């Protein structure tokens, strides 16, 4: 064979390509054959939603029971003062619904409302997150990947419901470390957190922690299924959502 430059370049090129394919092949082969799937036990829905009967859970004490169940399940710290972290909390009608009324009936005036992330269809927090740490799952849940959160707090500014809390300090300093739920992580300083509709419990086929603790006052289910429990409750009662004029389409409904 002629030792021409052309032949040399051909040979060199083929060798380089061969080496690339071989090394790529060995890397691919290492994890080959593994797949992933959704658990058979998992509850599935097109759009998860919650209905809260405020006639049944309308006091601070009743809502604290729900909040306690939620915060214990997710290792949420209780920090005194303005830097507290909350996934579920209680507040009055005016704060919850932005419709002040000077002459409200007495029971409604005194009633407390369980507030949490609304898992909006058009979630403003998802739109503003620069790292996609907050994202919309196909089942309607607005979830967070705390690994990605850089703590910029755009989502807190964007959320019209105040559903997000920032970890101004190391949350573990305010947790009872002996009573942690070892199935769920804590968060670290500098990330934002919020209610996740108990996505980890739904994956195991369980209902959210607050729904379990509510003795029937909270109903959870698939909004897109006309036969579901939430749709039945919505048909039978007068319900409102928080700040509908903003167009975020909350998934949490309140029976008044």
């Amino acid at each position, binding site marked *: 064979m002629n030792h021409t430059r052309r032949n040399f370049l051909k040979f060199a090129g083929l060798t380089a390509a061969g080496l690339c394919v071989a090394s790529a092949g060995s890397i691919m082969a290492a994890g080959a054959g593994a797949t*992933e799937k959704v658990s058979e036990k998992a509850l599935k829905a097109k759009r998860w939603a919650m209905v809260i009967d405020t006639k049944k859970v309308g006091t601070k004490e009743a809502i604290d029971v729900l909040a306690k169940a939620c915060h214990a399940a997710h290792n949420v710290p209780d920090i005194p003062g303005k830097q507290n972290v909350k996934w579920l909390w209680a507040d009055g009608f005016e704060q919850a619904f932005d419709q002040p009324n000077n002459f409200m009936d007495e029971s409604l005036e005194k009633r407390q409302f369980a507030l949490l992330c609304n898992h909006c269809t058009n979630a403003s927090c998802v739109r503003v997150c620069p790292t996609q740490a907050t994202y919309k799952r196909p089942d309607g849940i607005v979830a967070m990947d705390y690994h990605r959160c850089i703590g910029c707090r755009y989502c807190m500014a964007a959320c019209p419901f105040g559903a997000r809390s920032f970890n101004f300090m190391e949350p573990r300093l305010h947790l009872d470390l002996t009573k942690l739920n070892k199935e769920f*992580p804590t968060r670290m300083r500098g990330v934002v957190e919020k209610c996740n509709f108990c996505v980890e419990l739904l994956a195991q086929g369980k209902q959210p922690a607050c729904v379990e603790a509510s003795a029937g006052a909270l109903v959870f289910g698939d909004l897109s299924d006309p036969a579901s429990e939430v749709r039945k409750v919505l048909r039978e009662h007068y319900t409102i959502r928080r700040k509908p004029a903003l167009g975020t389409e909350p998934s949490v409904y309140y029976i008044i």
Partner: protein
Amino acid sequence: MKLYNGGKIITGLVIFLGIFLTPLAYNAGKAAYTQPKLKMPENEKQCVESKEFMRTQHMQLLNEWRDFALRDGKRVYVNSKGKEFEMSLQKTCMKCHTNKAEFCDKCHNDAAVTPYCWDCHIQPEGLKK
């Protein structure tokens, strides 16, 4: 042949080589590096994938698990042999590897890497103030 400034050059070379070789001299006669002895799970012989795969690629595997579980909602991992595992650091990995200090830390310390898993995830031996 004449070496200009030979004295200075040779002195400089000797000093440079001396400093350059100090680490070798310092470690001469010491035992060679051995991989740390890990405390392996007692009840389980086989990890999610092969030992070699886990040793070199567990970090990529954990990254994939995170994205599958959180973003796609696919929380069951079917390994190359068809066995199923829940994709969870705390509920799967640390149920067998019940001691972070005796397992994770040993290699991570030797390799001088400090992964931030445990800033949030709870190690199986629990947390102390």
